[in-house]
């Protein structure tokens, strides 16, 4: 059972470079989320999606873009990476109602 899969798991970027993190879920979940985790700051919501073709801003959306062209995929893009975006990124999904979040294993991104 794959669940929620994030790729890549690790990445090092130089300031100004761009990249895309891919999140894929095989549970037919409606809702998908991208978080970043930083020491002392917990999990902060970047963007989320309530269904295919929809996206919405979370708490810290600046510098990130997202797309949900297919129900099972939620992409997080960094157009011009900055050192402040060094973090561990988590993708999560859940079914409708009050379902729990199912998390990926995280992606560690370092921007030099």
């Amino acid at each position, binding site marked *: 059972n794959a669940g929620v899969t994030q790729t890549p798991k690790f990445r090092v970027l130089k300031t100004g470079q761009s990249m895309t993190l891919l999140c894929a879920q095989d549970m037919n979940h409606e*809702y998908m*989320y991208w*978080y970043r985790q930083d020491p*002392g*700051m*917990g*999990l*902060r*919501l970047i963007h*989320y999606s*309530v269904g295919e073709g929809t996206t*919405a801003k*979370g*708490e810290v959306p600046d510098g990130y873009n997202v797309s949900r062209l297919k129900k099972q995929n939620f992409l997080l893009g960094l157009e011009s990476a900055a050192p402040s975006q060094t973090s*561990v990124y*988590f993708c*999560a999904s*859940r079914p409708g109602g*009050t379902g*729990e*979040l199912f*998390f990926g*294993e*995280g992606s560690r991104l370092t921007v030099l």
Partner: protein
Amino acid sequence: AQTVTQSQPEMSVQEAETVTLSCTYDTSENNYYLFWYKQPPSRQMILVIRQEAYKQQNATENRFSVNFQKAAKSFSLKISDSQLGDTAMYFCAFMAGTYKYIFGTGTRLKVLA
């Protein structure tokens, strides 16, 4: 805007003892859901327990229980008979009709042998 506050960055407890982790939240919503998640050193997030705001009865899951005080907007987690495997970061989380799922800053719990 909803906020979730965990005021204890770190805690420790002796094995087999009981520990309580605190969480407060702020919202103007009447219907919402509260959660505790555990993140062990493996980094994998795991749901520990869930509470619906409309339910007065506190949720329990084996050794884990909550003390939900709606008027005070408080949602604490009690771990009984602590085990070494309970060592982890614990996050309190909130979800309401906006579908935003908001987390607190976490409490790092260490269970001592």
